[in-house]
């Protein structure tokens, strides 16, 4: 390792100066009626200045995108608008009137609705019951239920938001659950809808569907605020886009008059390589061998079916697939978290025990960046330095057999913070107080710095901002060039194509094909992922039936 010691996320040397000094707000045309105006919004959390003197104008009946890196202050700003936080300073105007929003009830009363990234639904309730929550109407539910049923019908007719009102929410697809969230907001009389990273959990198809709905809502008079870090979405659906960087609003642009690279530049303050820059792979011997692996879940359903493949030193193998087709289970089985029903995994020629033991996998030289960092890769309530040794807490360098040397752990963490530019650079800070991108860097630093021979990487850039994505991709290429075997699992096809030297496609728990990235295209892979292939088709149906 050690090719790049530090990687500056932000340089002032080139590229950005011209962009950042142009007058930032060429925003809405003068005189257009405004749905929302924010003036001088300021908010601090401890040493973190989350929002600095934010001014924002959102035109009525428009789709307004808010982009920015993680930690740029988008979510804080929206939380202020929705009443979760109170701004330290500044004014909020809704339809030209100054308002004070101290709780989400205030926001709802002002016609502001929010669709959260993580849905606020009661899984075991029906759609109607969820929509009624907080607006039950009377002591008994009967009257309210009938009213909701009528109103839901009107709403779905009006906006094309069809969903079965009596379905149990947990039985709906993620896309439909999101629709319920939107219906909830509309039912409460929202004229202004805030959507926080709405496509993070959606398939591309569901995302397209969502955009269609958003356009329709706009055309019927609603105003939509879309928070995202995906530039493609901004270009696809918004009318205007405001860019935030490090707590400040740096630009508001007409989407039609801008380009993804201009927005990206504004976001990170310098030119961004949207393409990954890498040389040809020089693969050598097999480092990870997976033989006939089958993983069965606790209901007896085979999630991974007889999967075999190898990853060689010096190459990145991308595992593409629609989320939920066995990739997660495969990763967990390879890393020893779940015991496989049959088959085996070899690291550097040595087999892992059948019972599954992540500690043993690490000893054999396997690093694992898990798909869901908060569920698995981090302990939110720990200080950053404590998470920097998670999984390696028995290592020799950080204490004796029994006692942990806290100073050694902190120095260890400080080295990661410096090398991976983790911000804020405070190893005593609670991990929950870091942004998503920085939390991911904590995990990546930990797993990469242990110098594993095999690195499993699940969704490395999920919920991570552009600057950090570029950084993470670079490090993965560096790992490869240093002769490591990298298995990359991602639902982002761009990422798979950008990084992989070979692409495996998974569908219905099976690997349905292998392609070289320069001999295929996103269409072909997309079709394979969707199981448009006889064998894969059958397998997918089986899983479906099993569920």
């Amino acid at each position, binding site marked *: 390792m050690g090719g790049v010691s530090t990687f500056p996320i932000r340089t002032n040397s080139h590229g950005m100066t011209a962009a950042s000094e142009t007058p930032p707000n060429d925003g809405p045309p003068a005189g257009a009626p405004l749905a929302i105006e924010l003036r001088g919004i300021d908010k*601090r*959390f*401890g*040493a*973190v200045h989350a929002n600095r003197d934010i001014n924002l104008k959102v035109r009525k009946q428009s789709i307004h995108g808010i982009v920015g890196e993680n930690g740029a202050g988008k979510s804080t700003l929206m939380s202020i608008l929705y009443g979760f936080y109170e701004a*330290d300073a500044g004014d909020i105007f809704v339809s030209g009137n100054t308002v004070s929003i101290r709780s989400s009830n205030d926001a709802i009363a002002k016609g502001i609705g929010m669709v959260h990234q993580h849905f606020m639904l009661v899984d075991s309730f029906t759609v109607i019951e969820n929509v009624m929550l907080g607006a039950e109407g009377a002591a008994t539910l009967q009257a309210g239920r009938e009213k909701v049923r009528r109103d839901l019908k009107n709403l779905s007719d009006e906006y094309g938001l069809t969903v079965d009102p009596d379905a149990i929410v947990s039985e709906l697809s993620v896309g439909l659950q999101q629709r319920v969230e939107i219906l909830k907001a509309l039912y409460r009389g929202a004229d202004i809808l805030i959507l926080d990273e709405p496509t993070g959990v959606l398939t591309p198809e569901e995302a397209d569907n969502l955009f269609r709905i958003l356009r329709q809502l706009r055309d019927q008079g609603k105003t939509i605020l879309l928070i995202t870090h995906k530039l493609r979405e901004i270009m696809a659906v918004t009318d205007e886009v405001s860019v935030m960087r490090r707590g400040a609003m740096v630009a508001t642009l007409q989407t039609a008059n801008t380009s993804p690279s201009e927005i990206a530049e504004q976001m990170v303050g310098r030119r961004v390589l949207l393409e990954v820059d890498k040389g040809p792979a020089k693969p050598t011997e097999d480092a990870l061998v997976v033989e006939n692996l089958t993983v069965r879940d606790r209901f007896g359903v085979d999630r991974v079916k007889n999967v075999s493949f190898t990853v060689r030193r010096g190459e990145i193998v991308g595992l593409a697939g629609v989320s939920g087709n066995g990739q997660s289970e495969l990763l967990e089985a390879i*890393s*020893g*978290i779940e015991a496989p029903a049959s088959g085996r995994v070899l690291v550097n020629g040595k087999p892992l025990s059948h019972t599954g*033991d*992540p*500690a*043993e*996998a*690490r000893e054999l030289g396997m690093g*694992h960046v*898990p798909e869901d960092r908060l*569920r*698995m*890769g*981090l*302990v*939110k*309530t*720990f200080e950053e330095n*404590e998470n920097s*040794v*998670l*999984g390696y*807490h*028995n290592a020799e360098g950080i*204490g004796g*057999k*029994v*006692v*942990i040397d*806290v100073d050694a752990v902190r120095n260890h963490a400080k080295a990661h913070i410096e090398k991976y530019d983790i911000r804020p650079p405070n190893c005593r800070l609670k991990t929950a107080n870091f942004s998503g991108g920085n939390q991911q860097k904590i995990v990546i630093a930990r797993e990469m710095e242990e110098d594993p021979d095999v690195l499993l990487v699940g969704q490395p850039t999920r919920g991570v901002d552009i600057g950090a994505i570029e950084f993470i991709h670079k490090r993965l290429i560096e790992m490869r060039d240093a002769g490591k075997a990298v298995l990359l699992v991602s639902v982002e096809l761009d990422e798979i194509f950008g990084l992989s030297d070979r692409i495996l496609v998974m569908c219905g728990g099976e690997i349905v094909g292998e392609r070289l990235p320069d001999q295929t295209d996103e269409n072909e892979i997309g079709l394979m992922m969707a199981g448009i292939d006889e064998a894969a088709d059958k397998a997918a149906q089986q899983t479906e039936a099993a569920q």
Partner: protein
Amino acid sequence: MSLSRGELPRWVDYGLIPLLNLAAAFLVAGLVVIAVGENPLEAVELMLFGAFGYGEGVGFTLYYATNFIFTGLAVAVAFHAGLFNIGGEGQAYVAGLGVIIVCLALDQFMPWYITAPLALIAGCAVGGLWAFVPGYLQATRGSHIVITTIMFNFIAAALMTYMLVNVFRQPGAMAPESRTLEEGGRIPRLDWLFDWFGANLGGAQLNISFFLALIMSFLVWVLIWRTRLGYRLRTLGQNPTAAVYAGMRPPRLIMIAMALSGALAGMMAINEIMGVHGRLILEFAGGAGFVGIAVALMGRAHPIGIVLAALLFGALYQGGAELAFSMPSITRDMIIAIQGLVILFAGALEGLFRPAIVAFFNAQYDRRRAREAAQASSAPAGE
């Protein structure tokens, strides 16, 4: 300033708020005292004097606190691993078996400093085993630890009654208790410590197990925050999925945490058997296992907090007994009600005053910011 809006200084968080809660508890308790026609100020004075006013009172306060420290630490260790051990009472009680067996075997031949460590080991082993079984059931069978530890309290009570009546009772004696221990089965009282301060321990049963409690507090702190095992326990407690990911073995950790917890609870048997009674008696744990839950909650599962909370409850016990003695209209039950109020306000209603205090500090913060802004605008700009 480093503090931001919405954040409280540590002295407020850990000092002012607990004190306010305590004050509220006493205020309500004062109303109760008024209701029975006594003077609440006088009652407080009697209570404080009873707990801290003279050597014997202090001795009793510290003696009670010793038990509460052990049981509080026991709850805290399990709590850090995400386990709620309600069974401290039973674990302490059963640990008495280990202690008394060693004492009965050795007290006539060995000096106390040989007997005591062995009795401690035996007591910890039995107490630990009593907690290990629910831990094992939780780890391998998924039986809920809260339910099983409560059940084990009842089993412990039945077992101990049987043992006392059928095994340890002296031939011909009526009382279900073991024979009285000789010198070699008694640990020294702390008269000398009180003599230093010119006080008199009197009849109070304070003994060297008080120091053991303080040492264990330190060791528990080391365990939780400075050892690899403690790191694993905390990971398990905060995020079991991450613990699996990190290669830890939750079933094993659950059993270890419970065994340690039971061993800590078991240490109070040393205080009671070797320090106070000099024999095994019925119900010697006397509810200290349950008070330990309140102590651990109030002390926020931190050893320093636990020592302080244990002192508070020790004072309530001792001062309360004194009060009941001096004011006949205040019965023993009312003392328990007052203790309950303290638990209510300090534990369950911990957040009662917080919003108001946060609002106060936010207002302070805004004023300071405004002043700074005014200064900044009057002075020439420059960061």
